[in-house]
Each structure stands twice: as structure tokens, then as C-alpha cells.
């Protein structure tokens, strides 16, 4: 037992650790340190609690901690990188569960002692039950979808919205009832938990696998709220602070993620109902056939900023946009970030022999960076991003594969072999040869629509802010 004041200050220190730690997690350089700092904060919080709270049954605590830590550590160690998101979902769910249990325990204690539950306590207990439970079941579904325990596709049925609404109202009603009738009501208690669990499931089920990361981030923010509510229940500041932090920063992160996937939060949450938004379509491109996937400038920027090998494929569009200077600037930027950039010059790119040479020479691109088709083609496999700027026919796989195509037999740049492809065009118009280009529908291809010069400048300023 230590004086409560000290404990409070200890908690304050812990909170500070969380705050600073969370901030640091935001940028690559400081992230690892940040994570460690917040871990320290957690340790402090735990120790303080153990010293402060009058622990009677160490055994209980001991069991819980040992078991929990063991399992947690094991999972963290054994999971392979590819299934990280699932794991996060799982852990997140546990967090929610913990909140439910704590709030529940408080409730039951009151019930056991036949104590009344003051209104405000009642409210926060209901809230932490609700949010905690939703977080738990929701996260479990998310996990199941990613782990492919269940189908990753969006599951919808008529009346789904209605059902959700009803359950929501039910919970509110029961909650209200409990709060008003100050005496503990077990039925209400268990029903609220049950319905909340159901609600969580209903909220996540109709969302497609592609959007799961966003959903998880959202649930993560919920689990923060749950913790904060628990904080109110047991009237403990560190819970409130940490919980609120996670809650709000979680929302922000979710928004950022949505932006990066260029879709609105709304259309993540109700995407399954409001079908056909670009990215949603993109998610299901392969299944739904020929729909080109468009990409946001932000995402393209990140891709390029972290790419090691970039090959730029200029075409007539680059000339039309007169974007030769912009493209050079972008290349310089990428190289400043430690990547290497080369230009793949197709013999007939543009509208006159040597068209691309003239342009790039004008922008002072060193000759040795311009590589002929034969020499660059093998390099596409190793390249992280192939950036196709206003080129079309010269990167049309039909020339290789489709004997019926008018350009069949013409040697082309094997852009489609690259790890990822970004194509800059104004629209889906064909090129000189006037034929469709399968490359644009390739799963690894992302279209960055707009005038090449504009897009390039946008990319440049975006990368500079990273």
C-alpha cells in the first residue's frame, strides 16, 4: 500500500508515456522507441496498481497474468507476418472482452451486495458493456474473415439494416431501464451483453475482406472507448486518459487509412450495401472482370517513396502533357530517397523516332539512364514499381499474346512483369493503334487518372511531405 497521491502521480507518468509513445509511433524513425516507451508506461501502470489496490487474492491475479502473458507472447512470436492483421483483431477483441468482464464484475459485486448503482455509474457500466462486447464480437468476425475461417466476401441479406437497428434500440432500452431502476437487474445485464455481442457481429459481417484493416482500426478505437468507460466505472484516471487517447487517435488513424485506400469511412461501413465504389470494385476486380483499379495520389506517392527499383516508361502522353521536367524532378526525388530510377525507352514511343529522347534530353535526363527495350525488359521482374506515363500501345501485352491484335508481334516493354504498375493517363482512351490495353486491368496495375503533368506535380509534393 502506497499513499494514493503517489499512485495517482504514477498513473500520470504512465499516461505521459502513452502520449509520447503514441506520437512517436507515427513516424518511421521514432516508432520502435515509441512502442517501447508506451510499454514502459504500461508496466508502471500495472506496478502502481498492484501497490495501490488492496490486493487480497494474489493467486487469482497471478494465474490470470501468467496465463495471459504466456498466450499473448506465444501468439506474438509464432504468427507469421502475413497474418498480422488477424492477430491484431484477435488481441483487440480480448481488450474488449476484458472491459466487459471488469464492468460486469463491478455490476455483479453491487448485485451481490444488493447495493444500488448510482445513475452515472449505471450509465458508464452499460456503455462499457456495450462497447466492450461490440468490440469483442466484431473483432472476432474480422479475425475469422481474415483467417478465412469464414468467407472474406461481404455477407448481406435483406432486412439486415432493420435488424441491426432493432437490436441497437433494444440495448438502449434495456440500458435505460437498468439505469433508471437503480437496483441491479441481472436480466437486463445479461441481455445487454448478449445483444451487444450480436450487434458487433451484425456490424462487421456485411463488410468485404478488402476493407477489414479499416474495420479493425475502427474496432481498435472502440476498445479504447471501452477502456475509458471502464475507467469511469472504477473511477481511475489512467484508464480514462489511455482509453480516450486510443479512442480518438484510432478514429484519426481509421480516417487516414480510408484516405490511403481512397474511400470514405461511410462507404467502408456500408460499402457492402452501397456497392460499386471504385476501390470496392477494385477489391473484387478479378472476380468482376475488367474494371481498372484507380489509385489515389497519396498511395502512389507512398509506393514510390519507399520503392527501391523504379522504371519509368514514358509515352506519347508524356509529350502531350509536356511533363518532361516534372518527371525528371520526380526521379530525382525518388533517388534522394535511396531508390534507383531508369527510363525504359520503347523504339516507337511517341509520334516520331526519338520522340522520348528529345523530351528527356530537354529535361537533362542523363543519357545513361535511358535504357533500350531489349536491355530493360529483363529488369522488370526485379522492379518494385513500373511507372507508365502516357504510354499505351508500347506496353500492350496483346502484342505478345493475342495473334488477332493488329500490333501482334511487335516487341513491347514487359511492364506487366513488374511487382506493381502505376499507369498515368487522363482516361481510358486507347493509343495510336486504337486498341484496348489489358495491362490496365492487370491485378497489379493501378491507374492514376489525370493529365500527366498535374499528376506528377501532385506526386512530387505528396512525396516531399512524407
Amino acid at each position, binding site marked *: 500500500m502506497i499513499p494514493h497521491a503517489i499512485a495517482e502521480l504514477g498513473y500520470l507518468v504512465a499516461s505521459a508515456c502513452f502520449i509520447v*509513445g*503514441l*506520437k512517436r*509511433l*507515427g513516424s518511421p524513425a521514432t*516508432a520502435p522507441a515509441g*512502442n517501447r516507451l*508506451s*510499454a514502459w*508506461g504500461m508496466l508502471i501502470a500495472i506496478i502502481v*496498481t498492484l501497490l495501490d489496490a*488492496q490486493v*487480497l*487474492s*494474489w493467486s*487469482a*491475479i497471478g494465474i*490470470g497474468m501468467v*496465463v*495471459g502473458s504466456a498466450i499473448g507472447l506465444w501468439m506474438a*512470436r509464432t504468427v507469421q507476418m502475413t497474418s*498480422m*492483421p488477424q*492477430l491484431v483483431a484477435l*488481441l483487440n477483441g*480480448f*481488450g474488449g472482452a*476484458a*472491459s466487459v*468482464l*471488469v464492468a460486469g*464484475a463491478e455490476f455483479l*459485486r453491487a448485485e451481490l451486495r444488493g447495493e444500488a448503482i448510482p445513475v452515472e455509474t449505471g450509465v458508464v457500466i452499460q456503455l462499457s458493456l456495450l462497447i466492450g462486447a461490440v468490440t469483442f464480437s466484431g473483432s472476432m468476425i474480422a479475425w475469422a474473415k481474415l483467417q478465412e475461417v469464414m468467407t472474406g466476401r461481404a455477407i448481406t441479406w435483406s432486412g439486415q439494416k432493420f435488424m441491426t437497428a432493432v437490436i441497437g434500440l433494444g440495448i438502449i432500452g434495456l440500458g435505460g431501464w437498468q439505469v433508471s431502476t437503480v437496483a441491479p437487474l441481472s436480466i437486463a445485464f445479461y441481455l445487454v451483453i448478449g445483444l451487444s455481442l450480436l450487434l458487433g457481429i451484425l456490424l462487421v459481417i456485411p463488410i468485404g475482406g478488402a476493407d477489414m*484493416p479499416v474495420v479493425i*482500426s475502427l474496432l*481498435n478505437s472502440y476498445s479504447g472507448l471501452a*477502456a475509458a468507460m*471502464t*475507467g*469511469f*466505472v472504477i473511477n*481511475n484516471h*489512467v*484508464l*480514462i486518459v489511455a*482509453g480516450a*487517447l*486510443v479512442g480518438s*487517435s*484510432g*478514429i*484519426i*488513424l481509421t480516417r*487516414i487509412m480510408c484516405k490511403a485506400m481512397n474511400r470514405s469511412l461511410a462507404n467502408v461501413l456500408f460499402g457492402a450495401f452501397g456497392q460499386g465504389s471504385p476501390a470496392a470494385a477494385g477489391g473484387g476486380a478479378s472476380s468482376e472482370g475488367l474494371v481498372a483499379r484507380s489509385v489515389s495520389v497519396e498511395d502512389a506517392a*507512398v509506393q514510390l*517513396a*519507399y520503392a527501391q527499383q523504379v522504371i519509368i516508361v514514358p509515352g506519347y502522353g508524356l509529350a502531350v502533357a509536356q511533363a518532361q521536367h516534372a518527371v525528371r524532378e520526380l526521379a530525382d526525388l525518388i533517388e534522394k*530517397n*535511396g531508390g534507383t530510377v531508369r527510363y525504359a525507352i520503347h523504339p516507337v514511343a511517341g509520334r516520331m523516332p526519338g520522340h522520348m529522347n528529345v523530351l528527356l534530353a530537354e529535361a537533362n535526363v542523363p543519357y545513361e539512364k535511358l535504357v533500350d527495350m531489349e536491355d530493360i525488359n529483363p529488369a522488370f521482374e526485379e522492379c518494385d514499381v513500373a511507372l507508365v506515363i502516357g504510354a499505351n500501345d508500347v506496353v500492350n501485352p496483346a502484342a505478345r499474346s493475342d495473334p488477332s491484335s493488329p500490333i501482334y508481334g511487335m516487341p513491347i516493354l514487359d511492364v506487366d512483369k513488374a511487382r506493381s504498375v502505376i499507369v498515368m493517363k487522363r482516361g481510358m482512351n486507347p493509343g495510336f493503334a486504337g486498341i484496348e490495353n489489358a495491362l490496365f486491368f492487370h491485378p497489379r496495375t493501378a491507374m492514376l487518372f489525370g493529365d500527366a503533368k498535374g499528376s506528377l506535380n501532385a506526386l512530387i509534393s505528396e512525396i516531399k511531405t*512524407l
Partner: protein
Amino acid sequence: MSEGIIVGIVIFTLATFLGFELIQRVPSTLHTPLMSGSNAISGITIVGALIVAGGGFGWISTVFGIGAVAFAMMNVVGGYAVTDRMLRMFTKDGGAK
């Protein structure tokens, strides 16, 4: 309304604002680590869990408590560990920037 709750609300509000400000623009490579990192923080419920479990307010509470502690602990330990793992692999290449 009890002073305690009010103070709680004040603190909650401030922390919320803080949370909004803390994270501005994050390269997508960091999205997952950040998510699991802050998720680990939400494991703070462990404090509540410990109080409940240790409090010995009758067996139900204790059982609930133990469960809570276990869950929270998984969230905490697992969360921090896995985040650390992600970040370590990340720092290899992205660290350049």
C-alpha cells in the same frame, strides 16, 4: 453528478483532443504497427482487471477478474510484442527514409 465523474469527463475530453492531434500523417507502411501499438495501449484495462480480480469481492467478481486479467494481459503482452516485431522488420528497409 459526482465531482469524480465531472473530473473524469474533463480529463476524457482533454485526452480525446490530444488523441486527435497526436497523429497527423502516417505512411501506409506504418498503419498496421500503429494500429496494433495503440491497441496494446487500450490493454490498460488490465488496471481495472487487477483491481477487480484482486479485490476479492466474492467469487463471481474474482472469476470475472481472472478472466479479465488474462484477456487484458494477452492484449497487452501480445500487442506490444507483435508491434515490436513488425517495427523491427520495418526499420530494415523503410528505415532509410
